[in-house]
């Protein structure tokens, strides 16, 4: 072994620490060190991938961490983790390179680079970890960085928000500020993580190990254990909740939409190319064990029972995926914000991956669905990162996030147009692009699963996808120049993005195109390497050719054609003014509003959950001792949080916010000390009562506990 694969994730962590330290010396050095650490990490990942392919056996290094619990921290490199680490690390580097220019002159750059590199480290930890606890640490690290970076512009200027300033749905404001969105992301993903950690605990209880290879090796053991208790299906679903939330699947999808308040580079990296794929990665990691354990259970009655449960589980996963795919794609059709279109698209594409992995469990050939999911993960990551970076450049140039303010940009940004077109074609699944092959294999898995609705939803989504992809290109680059563009023309010339920004997304778009071209030749070999020695897949598969089902391919191409055709027809031939139609036609208005307001899911969440809790707590407040609740809600919790935030952000805040926190902390302490003063009342009667109560309580405790 040339190099310990641990450096893949250690390098970004070291970069994070260095960028903090070096920020005091020189800003330029800090930026370069951060990007350099990402480059090193990608080089290590590449070397590791090369060694894995050459060596032909999994690389497993481990170091003892907590002796008493037998926890190790180590790296497990099989086909899945080596390819994912390769992809993630290079994307991190490209997007880090892009942000050198994109985030130029931002006052919070130290914070930005710290979390950016810390994210890279956490994501790579998650991918390469050999034990589930370590995986969870990476998992949480990515969540934390995502939260911090979504709220990067915590000063909440209107231009950083997501949504229309004055729009309300069911009385709930649809404008989301960065700081609010950050909290939303954290809350939504934490909901799922509770399931994840419960799953870890269950597995540890049964197997007494955290090691992923062992968990997968002994999968039949815990599956049988849970099946005997009748808890297999609930346990599997609970275990997958973290993945569903992380990958923004319905009903957890809302956070990803508003996560677009972060810098575009962050959206590209975390909310399109890497972190949101963690959920899919999790499914890819653990589903083979679940599926193949069926072959290793010999008790007939038990097998029957387990098979039923597992089939239902995969059906649920596939259905959630398919539903999310079309659900989110439909919303992308009417979105007016460039990044929002891409966000909807991301969730929709992630739905495809879940569809594929779920369908895999229902197909006769598990491996086809599994590969389809992973291939789609890789191609989506590449073209979506490219699309997002290009979108960032456009938003930067036009100074607006609304596509209404764009139009006719082809005259100014030709290269951006070309790269965006290539990536959009890949996204739509135009034949011979990378996205075409992966989407086709997803649809094939759906067809093989034998569930018709999966195929129908999947195919329809393809039409939606190509429609909104082309709509985006047409509205942004062609047509009449908008008022805003004309206005900007007078002030300064709108020009092509700076090369540092341009190069990364151009490269990725070209990669998406070229890989698509060579896929029929090299695809089988790559896929053979990917499934080589993947944990849980014991048989040795060799893929000989890329399989195409003519009927299915025809259907999918037809769908792309329908999508492109209708988009062209509406925006180039009819040149419809949407607002005009909406004013006239009430049905169209209803549909538009339904889609535009995200099916009213968000207001419903707020009305039911947030307001519901508020109502309950008001009720409690009315009836319960005011002092207890009062002190908890207004003193203890705010104090704890201000303290916590103070410690967390102490070193990252700009002076403005610093002052705010200081004022808040001081207030918190003042309130706390007022509370204490209440305790120390100076009234002798209270003292006597405290004394007697303390004595009585202790004596009672003694007698009750019999110690």
């Amino acid at each position, binding site marked *: 072994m040339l190099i310990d694969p641990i450096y893949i994730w250690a390098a970004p962590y070291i970069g994070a620490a260095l960028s903090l330290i070096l920020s005091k010396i020189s800003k330029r050095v800090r930026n370069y060190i951060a990007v350099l650490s990402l480059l090193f990490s990608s080089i290590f990942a590449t070397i590791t991938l090369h060694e894995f392919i050459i060596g032909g056996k999994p690389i497993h290094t481990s170091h003892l961490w907590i002796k008493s619990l037998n926890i190790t921290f180590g790296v497990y490199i099989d086909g899945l983790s080596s390819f994912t680490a390769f992809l993630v690390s290079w994307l991190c580097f490209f997007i880090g390179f892009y942000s050198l220019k994109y985030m130029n002159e931002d006052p919070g750059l130290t914070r930005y680079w710290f979390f950016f590199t810390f994210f890279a480290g956490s994501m790579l930890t998650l991918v390469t970890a050999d034990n589930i606890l370590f995986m969870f640490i990476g998992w949480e690290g990515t969540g934390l960085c995502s939260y911090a970076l979504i709220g990067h512009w915590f000063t909440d200027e209107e231009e950083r928000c997501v949504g229309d300033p004055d729009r309300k749905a069911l009385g709930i404001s649809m404008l989301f500020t960065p700081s609010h969105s950050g909290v939303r992301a954290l809350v939504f993903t934490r909901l799922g993580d509770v399931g994840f950690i419960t799953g870890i605990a269950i597995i540890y209880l049964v197997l007494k190990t955290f090691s992923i290879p062992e968990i997968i090796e002994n999968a039949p053991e815990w599956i049988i254990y849970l099946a005997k208790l009748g808890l297999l299906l609930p346990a599997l679903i609970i275990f997958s909740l973290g993945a569903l939330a992380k990958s923004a699947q319905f009903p957890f999808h809302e956070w990803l939409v508003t996560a677009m308040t972060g810098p575009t580079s962050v959206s590209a990296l975390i909310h399109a190319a890497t972190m949101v794929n963690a959920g899919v990665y999790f499914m890819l990691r653990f589903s083979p064990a679940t599926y193949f354990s069926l072959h290793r259970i010999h008790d007939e009655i038990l097998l029957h029972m387990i098979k039923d449960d597992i089939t239902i589980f995969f059906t649920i996963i596939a259905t959630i995926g398919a539903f999310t795919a079309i659900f989110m794609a439909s919303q992308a059709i009417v979105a007016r914000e460039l990044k929002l279109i891409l966000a909807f698209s991301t969730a929709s594409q992630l739905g495809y991956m879940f569809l594929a992995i779920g369908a895999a469990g229902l197909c006769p050939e598990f491996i086809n669905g599994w590969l389809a999911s992973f291939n789609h993960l890789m191609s989506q990551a590449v073209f979506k990162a490219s699309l997002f970076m290009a979108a960032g450049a456009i938003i930067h140039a036009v100074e607006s996030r609304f596509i209404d303010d764009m139009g006719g940009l082809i005259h100014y940004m030709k290269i951006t147009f070309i790269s965006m077109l290539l990536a959009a074609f890949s996204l739509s699944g135009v034949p011979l692009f990378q996205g075409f092959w992966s989407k086709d294999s997803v649809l094939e898995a759906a067809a093989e699963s034998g569930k018709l609705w999966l195929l129908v939803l999947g195919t329809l989504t393809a039409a939606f996808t190509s429609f909104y992809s082309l709509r985006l290109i047409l509205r942004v680059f062609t047509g009449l120049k908008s008022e805003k563009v004309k206005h900007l023309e007078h002030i300064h010339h709108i020009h092509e993005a700076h090369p540092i920004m341009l190069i990364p997304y151009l490269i990725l778009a070209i990669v998406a195109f070229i890989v698509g071209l060579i896929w029929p030749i090299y695809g089988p070999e790559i896929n053979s390497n990917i499934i080589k020695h993947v944990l849980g897949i014991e048989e040795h598969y060799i893929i000989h050719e890329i399989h195409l089902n003519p009927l299915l391919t025809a259907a999918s191409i037809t769908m792309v054609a329908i999508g492109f055709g209708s988009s062209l027809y509406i925006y180039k031939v009819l040149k419809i003014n949407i607002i005009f139609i909406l004013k006239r036609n009430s049905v169209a208005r209803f549909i538009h509003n339904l889609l535009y307001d995200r099916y009213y899911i968000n207001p419903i969440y707020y009305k039911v959950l947030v307001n519901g809790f508020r109502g309950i707590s008001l009720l409690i407040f009315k009836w319960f001792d005011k002092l207890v609740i009062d002190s908890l809600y207004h003193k203890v919790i705010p104090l704890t949080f201000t303290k916590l935030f103070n410690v967390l952000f102490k070193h990252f805040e700009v002076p403005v916010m610093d002052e705010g926190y200081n004022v808040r902390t001081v207030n918190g302490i003042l309130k706390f000390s007022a509370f*204490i003063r209440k*305790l120390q009342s*100076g009234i002798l009667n209270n*003292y006597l009562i*405290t*004394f007697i109560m*303390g004595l009585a309580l202790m*004596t009672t405790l*003694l007698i009750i*506990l019999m110690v």
Partner: protein
Amino acid sequence: MHLKFELILNLTTLLLIGSGVTIPLIDQLLIERKRKQLGYLISMISLILALLLNVLLIFSKEILSSEMLIVDNFGTIIVMAAIFSALLILIASVSEVRSWSTSTSYYSLIPIALLGIYYISFADDILLIFTSWMLTSVASYVIAGLRKDENSVEGAIKYSIMGMLSTITMLYAIALLYGVSGTTNLHEIGKILKLLDEEKILLVKISLIMFIASLGFKFGVFPFHTWLPDVYGGVHPICVAYLAGVVEILPIAAFVRLLSIFSAVPTLQNTCIFSTFMFSILTMIFGNIVALVQSNIQRMLAYSTIAHAGYFLVGFTAFSITRPILGIPASILGLQGIALHLITYIIAKTGLFITLSYILRKIGSVDLISIRNLGKILPITSFSASILLLSLMGVPPLIGFWSKLLLFLSVAGEYPLLTLIAALNSGISVAYYIVIIKNMYFTQNSTAVQHLERIKDPEVIIMIITSLLTIILGLGIAPYIAAYTTSLK
């Protein structure tokens, strides 16, 4: 040998009670001009003599005992510490107390209160514990109210009423203990307790809890601490110096005597551990958290006293643990820790409250804002106070480091959780101690700085002595003291 130790004890008693009684008498007889100085001198001479006499006890090679007394190294050590500390306070108080109308009472109450502490340190009998307790308690209620201003009177009244409640509780506890054992001698009680059945043991358990409440009341165990912030935080600091620096020994010495009997009974061990453990955690956390938000230094130190009560209880928890740590039984380690921490605590609290008194005299206020620039106004005092604060924090190589190390280490084998909580609390406490130092040295006030310190002031001399002791004891002597405490067992 017996003759010698009984002689020493009798002579000490005579010195302390004699000076305590004669000072008020002289006050009545002499004319105005001379009497105040004379009371101070008599008190000081008797304390010095008592200290010298008791030094002889150090050289005894065995544990000496008679019917109601047991003279062991632990007792000797804390008696020395108590007399020494009382002497320091007496010397330091002269410039402040001189102007009080009650100064004579102050000089006479110091030896009288000391007598109770002297006997409780050697007590082997619950009746002796009780009488010593009463003597010192009543004296200390009076000391708290000596200055006769509003805060002192309020504090003294609260202290005495709460004190009565705790004394009643202690009487009940003694009654229960006597009821089941039929004797008042502690060693006899220890033997009888081992033979008792389940039902009677329950009574002993309740009596134990009552002992903790009544003794804990005095050294600030939560939730029996309520009077403490009002008295330690409101009464004039020179009186508090005596209450915190000397009277605090009273409950701890008594508790050591009682608990070493109780914890030797197998059926009681769990109760001992449970109660000391619980009270220790509650007390530490309460004291430290509340001290964090105080802006008056005197109140902050009052809450720090409560926190330290929690640390002492950590050592008491170790009494019932037999498993050895580093080759020494945990109970021995706990006793050593308590003795050493008592010395740390006495030196530091005496010095700090004297400092406060000095600040009050020179500047007029003891809140965090008024001590800004103190490093320039009173350089020697500030520096010495900083050393004492660092010692309370447990910074090596000061004596506080060694004592905290022993205390926390003693339970580490059986209850690492308690060690962890204590260490965390110790960490929290750094936050408020350091604020004092920060305000003295690193926060600037715009007003012009005036040098107010005079090297001849007795407070300054005492501060130099306490800080030097803290350093010297810390530089290697502390472990020997600890080993000496239990060397005769």
